[in-house]
């Protein structure tokens, strides 16, 4: 099994994602600089990590969505490779139109860092199958702009098609319908604000993030 973590200027969870994947799955993880125009061959998972790509001085993720490597990420998604955007990665996937909707400033207008209890709204995806029917997970969030927004029709469709994967038990940021993570229609591109890359060992407060990475690589 093989995974790649894309490193944008300003990514700051790139090492965390690498560590989390390695320790949870033993997979080989390559770090790919955003300026690359080719991805390593044979990838089972591409992760867009958290951070503040390009400082997020424009809309979060807007600059990174135009990085050279993103054309390759889009092409890989088209081929069915699993793509997971975590935090800033979720924002980038929305800006790249690989996922619907947008992430607005938190309703509190403040950055929020805290553990969150999640409902696994769809346990059948390739990102959640490893939870084996469990309906809840615990991870942490850390973001200023995690307030998921989409129009009502899109939200209805996401819910109707089982594309809502994670929901907050207690909404920390004002997200529409308490949405914490979604997948695309095909089920291979996921975006989520909570950090599985900060919840992969008991000392970190939760091991549920390890199940997340194990799910996606088991399905590869």
């Amino acid at each position: 099994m093989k995974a790649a973590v894309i490193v944008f200027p300003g990514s700051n969870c790139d090492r965390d994602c690498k560590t989390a994947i390695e320790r949870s799955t033993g997979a080989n993880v390559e770090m790919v600089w955003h300026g690359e125009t080719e991805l390593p061959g044979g990838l089972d998972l591409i992760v867009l990590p958290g951070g503040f790509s390009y400082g997020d001085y424009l809309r979060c993720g807007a600059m990174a969505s135009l990085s050279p490597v993103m054309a390759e990420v889009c092409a890989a998604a088209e081929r069915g490779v699993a793509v997971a955007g975590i935090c800033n990665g979720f924002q980038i996937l929305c800006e790249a139109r690989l996922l619907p909707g947008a992430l607005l400033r938190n309703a509190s207008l403040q950055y929020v860092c805290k553990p969150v209890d999640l409902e696994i709204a769809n346990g059948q995806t390739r990102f959640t199958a490893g939870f084996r029917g469990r309906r809840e997970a615990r991870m942490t969030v850390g973001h200023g702009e995690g307030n998921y927004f989409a129009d009502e029709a899109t939200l209805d469709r996401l819910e109707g098609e089982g594309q809502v994967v994670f929901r907050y038990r207690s909404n920390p940021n004002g997200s529409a319908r308490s949405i914490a993570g979604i997948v695309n229609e095909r089920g291979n591109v996921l975006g989520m604000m909570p950090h599985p890359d900060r919840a992969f060992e008991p000392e970190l407060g939760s091991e549920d993030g390890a199940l997340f990475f194990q799910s996606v690589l088991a399905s590869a």
Partner: protein
Amino acid sequence: MSPPAKSLAETAVEFGLKPEEYQIIVRRLNREPNFVELGVFSVMWSEHCSYKSSRKHLAKFPTTGPRVIQGPGENAGVVDIGDGQACVFKMESHNHPSFIEPYQGAATGVGGIMRDVFTMGARPIALANALRFGDPGHPKTRRLVAGVVAGIGGYGNCVGVPTIAGETNFHHSYDGNILVNALCVGLADTDKIFYSAAPGPNLPVVYFGSKTGRDGIHGATMASAEFGEDAEEKRPTVQVGDPFAEKLLIEATLELMATGAVAAIQDMGAAGLTSSSVEMAGKGDVGIELDLDCVPQREEDMSAYEMMLSESQERMLAILKPGREEDARRIFEKWGLDAAVIGRTTETGRLVLTHGGAVVCDIPLGPLTQDAPLYDRPWVEPAVQAHLDPADVPPPADWSAAVLTLMGCPDVASKRWIWEQYDRHVMADTLEEPATAADAGIVRVHGTRKALAIACDCTPRYVAANPFEGGKQVVAEAWRNLSAAGADPIALTDNLNFGNPERPEIMGQIARAIDGMAEACRALDFPVVSGNVSLYNETAGQAILPTPAVAGVGLIPDYARRAGFASMRDGDALLVVGTSHGELGASLYLREVLGREDGAPPPVDLEFERRNGDFVRGLIRSGQVSTAHDLSDGGLIVAAAEMALASNVGVELSPTSATHAHGFLFGEDQGRYLIATADPAPILAAAHAAGLNVALAGQAGGSDFACHDLFRIPLARLREIHEGWMPAYMAGSAPVS
């Protein structure tokens, strides 16, 4: 900027130099300095850069020890944490800028301290901060809190270094001078530490990072003066931070260092290009020539004076090994950073600057660094408060109300509103207790079983009441907090915040507080490895409470054996380690419940401090105890209540002394810990054998926080009060005094 019409001697005074200091410059140069040279002298001889008022007293600190690799004098202190690894850390203030422009002032404080750490070759792995604000009722306080917290978070969160510890106090003495002290801790290999001394002449000097603009000119001078009524007008001297640039700078610097191209390196902090170039050349005993036309500039027509005094952020100066310019260029290009070779080291021992083809400064380096003025300022023995006997202090009229008052007072109330705005989990090595309840912030040393514990401490009301005893307490509490987490205290960094040192009573506070701190450092084998002094924290003659803050760093050999205070279980016995006399002088009980600020602070018996701490740490290391909390502000009541709230288990306290229950429960006697255990007998026996005082103080269980017939408060009610104050205050709906 063209030289003004007034005389240079007058300009010198405007730049913050004393007339007699200007005369020293003239004598050393054998001529009058020109405008650029005067600017260079004025910042290098500012209090901020030269420590001219405090240096004599700072020399009292012990600065060496078996683990110390680098003590004060470099960008940060360096201590050995075993296995070829070193911990690099320093604390620094950004008080004056944060008062004027709280967001940028605090943000750039965080940026500056991170640069001090990665400049030495260390990757920053943790941040902490110690904040002091004015009375919550003061019209500026709320805005300052909001701005400072947002600034600290905005910078640290973006760079991606977890903020894991801190403390926040409120007191009217900070109404006109808030304190923002930021700590950064980094990790390096012991054989890859980088220093600032230029190793020799004829080496290229490289500038990299952000471009130089007109921001922050004379910031170091501002930080070395009192505020008058015109503080707001100083806003243009506050710098603007760019955390994205800092993140790139960290990665580029560490990558450049890994290539082996760097011979010496220094960040451009206070006094920017001036202090970095002067210190690198001065420490290396060489000269330096800079061509200012090569400096990357953000604005047009910048003068030599402006470039040398700019405090634009996120800039570095490196001296490369010969022929390594290409390695450097490649890395800077990858990270999109501006960079240029702007000069070289020389054999002349002089600072020579050219601009527009002309020499605009040519002065010997010696006077700038070694000959900076050193003052033995006159001081008077500070007046100290008299001891208070518990019998002379009334018990509360209403016990429940007193407990709730303490738990909801601004200094004790939960600071969740603050720390939930800081990313404390990035880097995935922060050990998350439920609600992060421990006396120290703890981060793992990546990829090992080791962890570092970090604690920031100072109790300004104790230092004000008795600078010597209060100084001892500052160091002892940091040491105690690390011990309560199960760490071996290794070393500390200090951040000494005081008023105007030209006033003998303030200088007396400085001298005696340092005496006390130094005594505690020696007794506890807890050396000072870095530090910062912030003086002139006063406005219109009103000085802050003396606030010599410290941050201690400790090592946990195996993070499985550590302690917090959120793990108490139903049925656990609560034990107090240490002796309780009921010291109520300068206590929170006195201030918050009785409205008095008198009395001597609790004395610190350093021998028992050490023995009690070693005992508790031993219990944690042997796996006998994993729930421990130091007793400090508010005494046993507050410690037990915090433990109950964090563990979500009730507590029934049992005071041992019926006559002065309030002394036992609210007293702030030092050197004490509260531990919870299911099996107290062997611990009591071990304490008895060691000749230490350990006594049963209560029992965990139920859902009330209670003490016999004195009070019984449902945990939910206690939580509501403890968690409620800060969010309500920030929303503008809390009582403010």
